[in-house]
């Protein structure tokens, strides 16, 4: 049940990921089944239990002006790069107000990160210890605060309807997009820049995740380390980057003659209330999010043809998600192609929901389901139709795709997109 009848559409996309510096190169990598995971060559990585990661393909300092870059945490740099691409892709020629097609008071920004400015926090602590009080950057607080990417994107486009930062670990990016859809539906905004970003490839988060036994230790074969649904999967691979979409009310998009990628149908949300970091093994919480999606939005399981799964390549999580899909979708799962794109991108934590929404938007536009790579021996408990090895065509007609994101803390977010 919608509180209003405002239809929300996607009019722009942007990304910077381990596969490429924009959404087009990222998509090309996904369709080709290319892994973005490499060995970490930094000195600090030598003694770590995990020495592989999905490092960004194009360094932000190659793209952003230096005076701006030095005042932004790496997570905000990624978000700004992706947001600029998305904003231009949506056809806007300047920030809101400068481009008369959009009023600042009708624009929002909702960009999330799972961890926030962790490299700034830890880096400036090193400065404090090694160089003293005077040398700690006066930009430290505005750089490390978790709302910094959202706030900087808001400044970039002149967003005055509201700037928000929902935080739910690895579900953060998807939750941001869901929140943005609601902002438009409820009438608070006509245009919202939304997505997720993460920049946590630093020894402390790397060691901390590794000590949770959550990460793959396949240091010798980085491109084969992230292998959702495979029997040999042994954890996720940490990656960095951002994915951003421009969401817009259908009326606003039509009024200015904007391109429309797809409809953003809505979200389903739930929480596990099970464990702070373990997924609920039967998939009860994920199933509840799916049930909410179908009960609260104008979308039916029969319409769904593609799922960009959360599928992080952890032993428990991948199975729980599949159980939930079966429980809610039933026989409809038979006509749904499931893709685990983290097999190629690795896990961008709070950025995952952003780039996977961009991937899902492009899957609908191009009618192609990207593959799950490294799937050599399917886990016995995994039964859906997995897009294994190579990309596959999606059917014609009006089709729906889902994007799942779940986070430590038991947060479950399912987003639904429909082709136009």
């Amino acid at each position, binding site marked *: 049940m919608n509180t209003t009848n405002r239809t929300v559409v996607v009019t722009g996309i942007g990304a910077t990921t381990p596969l490429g510096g924009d959404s087009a190169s990222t998509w090309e990598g996904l369709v080709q089944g290319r892994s973005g995971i490499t060995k970490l060559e930094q000195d600090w990585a030598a003694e770590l239990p995990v020495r592989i990661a999905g490092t960004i393909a194009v360094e932000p300092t190659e793209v952003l002006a230096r*005076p701006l870059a030095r005042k932004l945490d790496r997570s905000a740099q990624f978000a700004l790069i992706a947001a600029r691409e998305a904003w231009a892709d949506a056809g806007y020629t300047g920030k809101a107000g400068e481009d008369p097609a959009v009023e600042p008071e009708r624009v929002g920004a909702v960009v999330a990160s799972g961890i926030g400015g962790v490299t700034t926090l830890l880096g400036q602590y090193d400065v404090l210890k090694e160089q003293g009080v005077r040398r700690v*950057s*006066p*930009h430290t607080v505005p750089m490390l605060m978790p709302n910094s990417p959202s706030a900087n994107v808001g400044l970039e486009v002149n967003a005055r309807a509201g700037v928000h930062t929902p935080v739910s670990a690895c579900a953060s990016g998807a939750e941001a997009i869901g929140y943005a859809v609601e902002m438009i539906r409820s009438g608070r905004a006509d245009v919202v820049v939304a997505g997720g970003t993460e920049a946590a490839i630093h020894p402390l988060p790397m060691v901390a995740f590794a000590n949770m036994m959550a990460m793959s230790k396949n240091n010798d074969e980085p491109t084969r380390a992230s292998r959702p649904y495979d029997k040999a999967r042994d954890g996720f691979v940490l990656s960095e980057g951002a994915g951003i979409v421009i969401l817009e009310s259908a009326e606003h998009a039509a009024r200015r003659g904007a391109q429309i990628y797809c409809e953003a149908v809505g979200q389903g949300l739930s929480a596990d209330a099970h464990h702070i970091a373990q997924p609920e093994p039967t998939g009860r919480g994920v199933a509840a999010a799916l049930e909410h999606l179908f009960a609260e939005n104008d979308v039916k399981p029969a319409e769904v043809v593609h799922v960009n799964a959360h599928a992080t390549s952890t032993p428990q999580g991948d199975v729980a998600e599949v159980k939930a899909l079966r429980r809610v979708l039933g026989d409809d799962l038979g006509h749904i192609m499931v893709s685990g794109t983290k097999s190629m991108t690795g896990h961008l934590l709070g950025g995952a929901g952003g780039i996977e929404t961009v991937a899902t938007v492009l899957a609908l536009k191009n009618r192609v389901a990207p593959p799950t790579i490294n799937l050599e021996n399917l886990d016995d408990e995994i039964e859906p139709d997995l897009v294994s090895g190579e990309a596959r065509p999606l059917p014609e007609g009006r089709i729906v795709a889902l994007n799942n994101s779940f986070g430590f803390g038991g947060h479950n977010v399912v987003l639904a997109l429909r082709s136009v």
Partner: protein
Amino acid sequence: MAATQEEIVAGLAEIVNEIAGIPVEDVATDKSFTDDLDVDSLSMVEVVVAAEERFDVKIPDDDVKNLKTVGDATDYILKHQD
């Protein structure tokens, strides 16, 4: 050895270029850090710390608010450097 006025202006120009991206030739004694050189209050702290190191001078926080222009900063450094 104490820096000359010319050396201080040139040094400040390099610092402002590094922090705010303003071309060194645009940094002159009559320019306001905030209004002309894109140095906001946070970046001004960076300029001050860099100037302290470069010219071996202490600029207490209470004095920073009086340094509106490049000329103000140059005069302050000339007067207080060792």
